[in-house]
């Protein structure tokens, strides 16, 4: 009976402490919004980046070339036009100036037609400032067009001489991609993976610093410690307060991204990206321990520092972890087994697999979650112990 009532008291106190932390965290709406800004910007960044990438990959905007001697090779000019390589004289007014400045010139020799009929090699001259970055892609396209047009004529010449034109392709390399058919656009999944990690680490950051180093400087911490509550309760309350904000950040990234990827036509590049409810829930479940882990790390470090300022700069370095570790992991070709167990590294590998469409390895999921939670618990317990010492509370050393 007594055990039960003391337990109730313990929980009641914890609840009051958590409410206090929530009040603190949610009081300054603007600060909170800024803290969640990262999460809000993620989908915007993802959509913008994808749109730019897709445009680069598939769009072939018109290129205007200053042809000298277009009249000697009407069929070549027609072939160019079919590939959106057009004559400068036909450029619309608003684009004419730009292309006149780029000044890509092609000279077609006067005896093109007779040389073609007689089977003599013909030289076309392409003049431009090749160091100009804007000239690069058009030149590449002109090059490809000339090569394929030339080849198609060559093929016909041999065919009409009774040669089996398949002789010209002794080898064909057929690429077979073993990625799952429903594998997603790699850019989006990589960005989303990193954003999720960042959201987990960054959203709760200001709350964690404020409720530790901040409260110490405002002398609120002393007040708290004077109350008849244990230091473990105080740490737990602060942890829950900060990690709640992290979780909100992660949920926001997931929800907003799943809504906004619909705005990009990924099918243009033969890819797709859907963040369905199952995947979102799996990701959220995977990242929950990370949210607590991040807040625990931040609280731990912030309490070790001497001032609010120092806490800010030191904890900011911690943000490097979520950005850096997944990057390193994705660069590694041979991944040692123990990486599976490490917090952040383990999760980011599972996230990568989820986006690749590989079935989730629930054992690895469980393992990395357990390790992450274990480290979090250790941090909390050690921190609670440390808070009993005046050194930490008063920032003496």
């Amino acid at each position, binding site marked *: 009976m007594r055990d039960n009532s003391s337990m109730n008291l313990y929980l009641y106190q914890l609840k009051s402490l958590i409410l206090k932390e929530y009040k603190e965290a949610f009081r300054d709406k603007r600060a909170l919004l800024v803290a969640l800004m990262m999460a809000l910007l993620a989908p915007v960044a993802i959509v913008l980046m994808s749109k730019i990438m897709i445009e680069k990959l598939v769009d072939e905007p018109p290129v205007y070339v200053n042809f000298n001697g277009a009249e000697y090779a009407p*069929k070549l000019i027609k072939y160019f036009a079919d590939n959106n390589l057009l004559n400068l004289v036909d450029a619309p007014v608003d684009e004419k100036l730009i292309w006149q400045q780029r000044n890509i010139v092609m000279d077609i020799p006067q005896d093109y037609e007779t040389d073609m009929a007689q089977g003599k090699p013909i030289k076309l001259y392409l003049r431009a400032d090749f160091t100009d970055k804007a000239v690069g892609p058009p030149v590449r396209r002109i090059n490809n067009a000339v090569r394929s047009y030339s080849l198609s004529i060559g093929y016909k*010449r041999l065919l009409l001489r*009774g*040669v089996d034109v398949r002789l010209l392709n002794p080898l*064909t390399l057929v*690429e077979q991609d073993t990625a799952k*058919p429903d594998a997603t656009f790699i850019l989006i999944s990589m960005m989303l993976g990193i954003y999720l990690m960042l959201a987990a680490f960054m959203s709760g950051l200001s709350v964690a610093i404020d409720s530790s180093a901040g409260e110490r400087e405002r002398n609120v911490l002393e007040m708290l410690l004077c109350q008849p509550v244990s230091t473990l309760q105080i740490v737990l309350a602060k942890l829950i307060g900060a990690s709640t904000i992290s979780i909100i950040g992660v949920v926001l990234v997931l929800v907003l991204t799943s809504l906004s990827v619909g705005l990009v036509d990924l099918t243009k590049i033969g890819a797709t990206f859907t963040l369905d409810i199952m995947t979102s829930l799996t990701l959220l479940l995977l990242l929950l321990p990370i949210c607590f882990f991040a807040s625990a790390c931040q609280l731990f470090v912030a309490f070790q520092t001497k001032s609010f300022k120092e806490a800010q700069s030191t904890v900011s370095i911690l943000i490097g972890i979520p950005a850096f570790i997944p990057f390193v992991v994705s660069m590694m070709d041979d991944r040692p087994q123990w990486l599976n167990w490490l917090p952040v590294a383990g999760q980011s590998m599972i996230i990568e697999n989820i986006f690749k469409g590989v079935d989730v390895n629930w054992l690895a999921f469980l393992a990395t979650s357990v390790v992450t939670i274990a480290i979090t618990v250790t941090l909390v317990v050690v921190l609670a112990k440390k808070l009993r010492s005046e050194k930490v509370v008063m920032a003496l050393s």
Partner: protein
Amino acid sequence: MILPWKIIKLLVWVLFTVTLSLKFVAVSFASTVLTLENCHLGEIRAQVKCGKLDVPENYSKPNGTKISINFAVLPAIDNSEYKTPLMFLAGGPGQAAVELATALNRVFREVRKTRDIILVDQRGTGESSALACDLEAIDNVYSALSDALTPEEIKDCVAQFKGDVTQYNSENAIRDFDVIRAALGHEKINIYGGSYGTRAGLVFMRMFPESLDSVILDSVGPIEVPIGMFGQSGARSFNLLIENCKKSESCHKAFPDLAQEFQTVKARLGKEPITLDILHPRLGTPTQLVLDDSKFTGNLRFQLYGMRGRSMVPLVIHQAFLGNYQPLIGLMAQNEGEQMVYTGLLFNIVCNEDMPRLSAADKAIDANNDFDGKNSHQAWDMVCPYFPEFRPNEAFYQSVTADIPTLILSGDLDPVTPPSNGEFSAKSLPNSHHIIVENASHTVALTTCANEIVNEFLTSKLPKKLDESCLKDIPQETFMTSVNGVQ
């Protein structure tokens, strides 16, 4: 941890996929025989899905012999909004749809963005118990004449077929297609039929109209017109080519007497086949070219199917007139040694479903043309007597009148399925629209921008309200005028 998660997953699955669960039932019903796994197909870079399904060889004996039907699914790139898939019905008869995956993946890339594309090897082709035999591999296309086949060879070939060949007919093929539709869990599908695939499509419309959302018939072989009589249609296509050459300034200048030159060469070769010592176009070793008039016109006929081939025909004729057969040899070399159709199935279907309906008078009318006379009948006359006999019932020959949105496409220059064929179907199908593409030949959606119209039609299902403007941009046919290139 693992088990409850699976239960949650299952619950969520059930909650969010009420509509899909219906399909689940269908799959599990057939799951004892359906396999579907990731695979690589042709030259497609990404993985697609390949499957097999066991079906009765004879549908009136469901517990009798089973045959395995091979199929593939090119999965929709974005399947988030489920759209009914497109099944491709191959031509021939005798083409294996799965073998065409590489090209179809390219042609139907817009369709595939949001729809699965289903390819089924018709029974008797590809990996669906192909009706094939050694006869397919004619060693030397250059020295062999087209009538070199002996009755013994044909009998040997037929003897090699396994199973009850009379079951390898159009109606059973359609039953297979519909079983695969159901097994894949689709309540309805769209079908695209090209060439003979349109005949298959029409049979599909008659037998299982409730399975079809919409139909595209490209280069129609209607029930009303027996397959195999290509004399008149070939001559029409060839004469259009001659007219177009006349209209083209450069072609007319280079070949002012094209029609006359063609008749001269034909008569010359008809009098006596020529034999020339040549270098084998692929091997580079000495061999012989034996050429008679029917081999000459047969190879030209083959060029009439596509715009690229047509562009070379005037030049090939003119050079042959001058005594230079190298251009013709080059044309023959293009597909030498490649198997285009499974000839066993081709003959099995045409000899039994189409040829018996033709009278001697019909054949005489068809043979009365100035292009290749009765040469297009030659193969049937030679082979059909040796093939096992079956006869479809009378219902098979009734005009199809299903009220399904149908888009009909014809190329005006087509040597085998002229626009008049499409008119038969346009008349009998109430919800259809017939588009005749002026500057295109056989199977227009596979060779022109008509595939965009097909894509639009699959979405709107309104055959009469489609944007056909891109067809106007297809250029008039142009011709090569010199052996050194286009100009």
